[in-house]
């Protein structure tokens, strides 16, 4: 087993406008961030047509942002983000022996956090625009969190239930589908399951965050192909004292290891939308996305 896997990620987005566009401003969240288990080797963007203005900065959550503006007449826009990352294959702390702290104690300790933790952990305990508290979902969540159970254990149980109770059905929901509808319809895509999971955990007072990222397109020989591999993927991370942030992928019912590539982290999808653009001009747009992840 090598010490690390190297992946090359190509994320390509294209807009085809129905008329000519004279000005568009775009904000990207496509550059993979570093994590304790992942480091970025290279990242570059190629944009057609060539933008007049480009810039980049780090956002509130520590994600790398690219901004660009195309200021001349154009009919289509192609944004290709290419990156290479290395992911450690070392065993994750939660794969071995560890102490799983009782969830009520963890929840009770969060409001009093101080220092960087108040911002870095406490903030993820709070409801966000896409993860409002829903009483029904709180009940659903509590069923996996009997008194005294550890945070990790409870999350694992909840992840399994979401995986079983909800059908993975691409196209059944849209970007703005709310969690109430998902709860009622019992189906959705990875983003919906992540929002559901987050909202449930936050409603019982735990800190959890949204992760956008990628999966290897073709599985290595002998391994099953994971759901959500043909587009960008989403899962969540839960803060477990002693383990730091632990990832859970409800779509595939597993704790991500070296086959999940992290792009960005936020409170929900809308904090880490891969590409957000606003254009001036008439005409609607067609959005096509292609993601390709291969071993480098």
């Amino acid at each position, binding site marked *: 087993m090598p010490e690390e896997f190297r992946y090359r990620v190509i994320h390509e987005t294209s807009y085809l406008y129905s008329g000519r566009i004279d*000005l568009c401003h775009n904000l990207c969240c496509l550059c993979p961030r570093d994590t304790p288990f992942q480091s970025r080797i290279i990242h570059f963007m190629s944009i057609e047509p060539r933008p*007049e203005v480009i810039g980049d*900065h780090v*956002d509130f959550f*520590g994600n790398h942002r690219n901004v660009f*503006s195309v*200021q001349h*007449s154009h009919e289509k826009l192609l944004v290709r983000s290419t990156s290479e990352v290395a992911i450690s294959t070392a065993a994750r702390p939660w794969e071995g022996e560890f102490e799983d702290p009782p969830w009520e104690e963890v929840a009770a300790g969060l409001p009093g956090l101080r220092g960087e933790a108040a911002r870095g952990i*406490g*903030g993820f305990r709070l409801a966000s625009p896409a993860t409002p508290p829903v009483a029904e979902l709180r009940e659903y969540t509590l069923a996996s969190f009997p008194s005294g159970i550890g945070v990790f254990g409870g999350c694992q149980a909840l992840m399994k239930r979401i995986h079983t109770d909800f059908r993975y059905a691409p196209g059944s929901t849209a970007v703005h589908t709310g969690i109430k509808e998902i709860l009622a319809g019992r189906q959705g895509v990875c983003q919906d399951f992540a929002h559901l999971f987050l909202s449930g955990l936050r409603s019982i007072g735990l800190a959890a965050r949204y992760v956008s990222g990628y999966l290897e397109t073709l599985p290595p020989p002998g391994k099953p192909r994971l759901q959500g591999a043909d587009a960008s993927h989403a899962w969540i991370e839960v803060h477990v004292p002693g383990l730091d942030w632990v990832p859970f992928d409800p779509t595939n019912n597993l704790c991500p290891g070296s086959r999940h590539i992290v792009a960005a982290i936020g409170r929900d999808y809308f904090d880490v939308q891969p590409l957000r653009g606003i254009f001036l001009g008439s005409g609607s747009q067609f959005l096509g996305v292609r993601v390709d992840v291969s071993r480098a």
Partner: protein
Amino acid sequence: MEVATETAEAKRKPGEIYRTGPSAYDELLDKEGAVREPWREWMALCREGGDKIYRAWNKATSRFVREVGVSYSVQRMAGKRGPWSFDPVPWIFGASEWAGIEAGIAQRVRLCSAILADLYGEQNLVREGILPFEIVYRDRGFLRPFVLDADRNRKGGRMGVLPGLVNFGKKSAPVPGLSLAAVDLARGPDGRMWVVNQRADCPFGLGFALENRSILSRVLPATFQQCQVHRLANFFRSWRGELENAPSHGREVRVVILAPEGQAQEFETAYLANYLGYVRVVPGDLTVRDQRVWLKTLGGLQPVDVIWRAMPGRMLDPLEAEAGSVFGVPGLFQAMRAGNVTVMNHPGAGVVETPGLHPFLPAIAKRLLGEELILPTVATWWCGQPRELQHVLGNLRTMVIKGIDIRSGFQTIYGSSLSEAQLGDLRNRIIGDPGLYVGQEEVHFSTLPCLNGLALEPRSAILRAYGLQTRSGEVQVLPGGLARATALQSYIVSTLAGGISKDVWVRSDTPPPRHVTLWKPEGVPTEETNPGHIPSRTGENLFWTGRYAERADVAARYLRRILRNRVEGFEQDSELEGRHEDFLFRALSEVMMIAPPLPPGGRDRLLELASLLEDETRAGSLPEALEAFHRASHEIRDVWSATSLQAIEACVDGWTDARSAAKSVFDYYAPLDRLLLDLTAFVGLSLESMTRDAGWCLLDAGRRIERALLLVELLQHGLARPVETDVASLVCESVLVIADSLVTFRRRYRRELRPHRVIDLLVYVENNPRSLSYQFDRLEQFLALLPRDGTGKVGNPLNLIREARKDLQRFTPEQLAAQDAADGSRPDLGDLLKRQRKRLLRLSDELTMAYFSHSQRR
């Protein structure tokens, strides 16, 4: 604006001027019933004047409110009453008391500024647990894109410049956290002033404060002088100085006031824009290119250095604001990041408004300023803490419950007004998500007199005070403000429940300077002289105001002619007049493009006429043109003088009145005359009171193009197309009447109604302001005055007009009058008119393309 006039005389005992209310503190009278010092002169005035002076106040107030308010009172135009009424009794403060309040307000403004610097910078308040992070992070006024993370950006970003509240990075100018903040104050039972709210997102009300002062200083001029009331203008001069104190790159700093689309805050921003002399813009007037903000003007794109925003920070940039926002200027935050534009107040300033801050303010003031709060805040408990939650739930009946995110739409709830069942619901709601709520002690604020009819009545009131922080960190407090009193004798002061606004007088121990001017000291050229300063949207609306005013005018002339013929003509020869009317209906239908078109037959004509006079949903009807005229002129209400606005109102309101009064179509004859007069008054006034700049050119160009177009069509129907011989002279006369040239014709040609003379007068006579040549002549003059934006686009419109004039010169009136032997039509005239019509339509399109359309690359 309206004045409270309901009478309450019955409640008053003879000889008694004012009786205090149930509140523990009254502003006018102390516990013993003696008049408080600052009110002496005012009270003496009431004692002397009695009912007579109240009547005079009411009268003068309504007059001034109408005069000042008519220009801006938006709700009235939309058919609703404004939320404000104005009361002629001021809230008077003595000099020494105000000095203490002033220090307290200044401290609050400094505190707000320090809180912003901390929350968007180091976040020590959160790190040290002085302020629970939940209160900050759950507030939609807290804008994450502006959080400065020095460490991360020093390492990670090549641009490295996040717009913080300190100078950071080479290009970024020091951005003040806060420029202008408002503090709502009320006097508690103990006689101290308490802080009720802090406002910093886009503090509302300064325009009203100015307007109230402008009214009251005229209603009570002598008392105003006697009391030595502080003037407001100095504050605004300082504010303007702050706004203009930005890097200018060698030109005059351009400041714009950014208001939301639609009517919200229109009064306020239009008033302030006029008062301060800045352009008022909506998001669509601005564009971001090269990480700079530009104003789309008639002269092309012009750089903007400073934006005073009158819209919420979270709506400023749809690219980076919360999901789903469609307002704002895309790319604005990036332009701020690049240090190319200053936005005041800072977009993230709204976070200091959350009532969640209140319980923690004493500790925050100690930590950030090292000071004790001068003005106390109304006792507040945040329900996110277990003990505080228990306290609030245990005393729910005496609590005022507020949401910590004031942008969530949660309405303040007064526990005292709830039933047991409602209290239970509220309790469950709070327990469901306690961190979202605060409980505030319900305080009964002091009362002060309000004039209700001819009686003074006690009402609770709160004072909105304003402080301006300069770049050097000093705070200047407006000596005055906006007072709001309850409409009824209740304790709840709210703009939604309807309130009364009052002027606030701060007395000075020394006579203030007699006159403070806002004019700039030396001969700086005013913005108006440069066409490049007129936003394209303004230009476009001026153009369409001109077109619709003319369209309404011509529609009214057709209708008046038809009505007149019905009344007078039918008696003489009804068969001939019937065919004459056929002509008028046909021409009207086609010229005004009435849809559905008027039926050719004579039946139901009265019904059709009624619809043309009354139905604004029918395309081509008179009310439709008036409505469009109103809409276009209303969009740019800040460009009109007060008199022009009154003329607009007269046109629109006059017609509305006529519609409600009319019992048959014939009742419209006199109102049509009146409308023509009002429209002419509007056009005349506007042309008289506007400078001869690009905007004026467009207003008149719109009018000329419309007049030429409608005239071409009229001539086409009346003279070019075949007309039966016996009715021809009646038709010619109608053509002259509708083109408002009958009197001129008679004077010029006596009684010989020959077609070639009609053609001569309406097409060729250059000094007839109704002729086609005259319209072309004027259009050519205007187009030459319009700015060229470097692309030379104006060339096309000019060429079109020159072509049109040349085309006219190819013929004489006699040639054009030549008839086709077979059907009596005039083919040369017809073809010429068709060509001219095409040119005019193209001209309108070309102007739109060259000056109004910014989806084109410029």
